[in-house]
């Protein structure tokens, strides 16, 4: 009986959040969208006070009811774009959110798991995007050839950033990554074969079995726009990225990443190879960014140096810190929020950096561990289940 009420609470909560999200995206007037944000914030604030409800929701993805919560979440995320069939723009924003989620998941390996604050994630995003853009426009290679090539290139370049960074720690490592970010940006901006400041236009959408994702699908009288199919295409990549990231987190590598974040000397004294583990975090993180970049290039059809500026790197770091370090769901939430909310407030675009700064200050003041913080790993699944 108790279980059933838990399920209902979880489903109601998820539907509420999604309904609020849909209303927020549909809202025409600024006051209305701000109002929705306030309502959500107030609802969450009162939830914190209801200890029992809060506990049920807090453990919904890890506890005994996780099957139900995951299922209902997947259903909602699949249904979400169908509310915006007429608005290509909002579908666009949602797909952006998915793409940035992949990059943020990768950045989390470095910032969340290993404690290495890397501002150069946008560089690898850009490198992935440029690799795919140049290969597909100049050599006419298909998406499915560009993707693995971009993975290899971003992986190798991730190693190239990681290697010198190993000599440094904390702030100095961040400085190295910022320098790397600027160097890569200036190179791409100034070289001729990358298209310089004009970027690379004319990238085609990928094809699956000869079917281009750019085309709209007609079923009966309903037209499903091309952006909708790309939303699901990106969603599939997010699902894969999330599964792999979770498995990394639960592996010995994930555990040793956390160990070296907490105490390097103790880690060394227990045989954990710092060099290899840190490099792996750089390589995998960069590959995630590269894949996100490839998806971006083929989605937008145009890549420019603006995609790999320091500002984008800063945005990605903010996603991880806002969402919750070393919690994959938190990172995804952070990425989604930081893509969707600013898009809605385009009118205040000039104040965007102010907005990020404000969020960071508020987070550090009130919830430094992020919206959904790091959770302790659970073992003994069987026994835990029996006890419940």
């Amino acid at each position, binding site marked *: 009986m108790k279980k059933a009420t838990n399920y209902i609470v979880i489903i109601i909560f998820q539907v509420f959040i999604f309904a609020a999200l849909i209303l927020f995206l549909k809202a025409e007037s600024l006051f209305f969208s701000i109002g929705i944000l306030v309502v959500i914030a107030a609802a969450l604030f009162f939830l914190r006070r209801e200890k029992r409800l809060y506990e049920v929701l807090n453990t919904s993805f890890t506890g005994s009811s996780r099957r139900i919560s995951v299922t209902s979440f997947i259903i909602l995320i699949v249904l979400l774009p169908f509310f915006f069939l007429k608005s290509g723009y909002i579908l666009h924003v949602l797909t952006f959110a998915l793409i940035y989620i992949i990059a943020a998941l990768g950045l989390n390996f470095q910032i969340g798991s290993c404690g290495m604050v890397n501002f150069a994630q946008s560089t690898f995003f850009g490198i992935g995007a440029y690799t795919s853009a140049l290969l597909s426009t100049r050599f006419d290679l298909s998406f499915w050839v560009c993707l693995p090539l971009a993975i290899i290139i971003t992986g190798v370049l991730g190693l190239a950033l990681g290697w010198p960074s190993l000599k440094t720690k904390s702030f100095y490592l961040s400085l190295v990554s910022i320098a790397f970010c600027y160097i890569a940006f200036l190179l791409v901006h100034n070289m001729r074969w990358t298209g310089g400041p004009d970027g690379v236009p004319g990238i085609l959408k990928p094809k699956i079995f000869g079917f281009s994702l750019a085309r709209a699908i007609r079923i009966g009288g309903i037209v499903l726009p091309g952006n909708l199919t790309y939303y699901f295409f990106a969603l599939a990549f997010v699902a894969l990225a999330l599964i*792999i990231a979770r*498995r*990394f987190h*639960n*592996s*010995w*590598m994930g*555990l*040793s990443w*956390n*160990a070296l*974040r*907490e*105490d390097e*000397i*103790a*880690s*060394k*004294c*227990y*045989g*954990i*190879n*710092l060099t290899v583990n840190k490099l*792996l975090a750089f390589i995998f993180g960069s590959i995630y960014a590269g894949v996100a970049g490839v998806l971006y290039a083929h989605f937008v059809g145009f890549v420019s140096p603006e995609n790999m500026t320091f500002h984008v790197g800063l945005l990605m770091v903010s996603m991880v810190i806002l969402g919750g370090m070393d919690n994959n769901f938190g990172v995804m939430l952070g990425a989604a929020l930081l893509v969707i909310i600013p898009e809605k407030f385009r009118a205040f675009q000039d104040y965007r950096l102010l907005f990020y700064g404000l969020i960071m200050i508020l987070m550090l003041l009130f919830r430094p561990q992020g919206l959904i913080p*790091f959770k*302790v*790993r*659970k*073992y*003994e*699944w*069987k026994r835990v289940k029996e006890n419940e």
Partner: protein
Amino acid sequence: MNNSTTLLKASDIVMQFGGLKALNGVSLEVHRDEILGLIGPNGSGKTTFFNIVTGIYKQTSGLVEFKGESLTGKTCQQIAQRGVIRTFQTSRLWFDLSIIDNVLLGMYMREKPGLVTAVFNPKALRRDFDTKVEEAKAVLSIFDPELAENCYRKTKDLSLVDRRRVEISRAIVANPRLLLLDEPAAGMDVSETSDLMKDIQKLKREKKDIGIIVIEHDMMVISSIAERVVVFNFGKKIAEGTYEEIKSNTEVREAYLGKA
């Protein structure tokens, strides 16, 4: 002493920090199946000695040999892989991780499923973790069954005493050949200390051929556990022998208790 029973042999170790000689020509040996007590006043170089053996510091001169192999120039990680495991004076746990994760990471050097298994066969990984978790809990229960029960608590929430217990458990599951305990009883009361010493002796009986060095301030503790005692003062070894011999040594009494 023939050579084969020698586990660790340090000869003429000098460690210089700027103008200060933290260790000044120290030599000592640890044998298999032995608990060696290392005592000395604050700043006499005991922990520095541990840091050199485990590769955290590189000695200015001198030689450290483990089972006849020189440890000079080896990294911490390589030394750990040879079975030299230590605890730290101020606990160095991974504080944001749970008790169980800390002890599990002690088993890092054992055979374990790799990344490919973790990604493509998570069930095999989980089975491996399940057996290791059970073993970790068994070791934790030696010290305190409550630690095993609450093993999902973060170690930063633990008391000083429990932190030490977790740290020693972590060292034990690493299957050490030479175990270096840096003031394991600091902060414990009398009964907790005597329990801990009994557990350490039990451990020595169970794991054959293991050598243990214990740094300790408390002479009573050392008398109950160590078969041989080495005394450091100002970076030099001033005495060596059984507890009874050490006790009557005037130089030791002066260093430790001050001049009467």
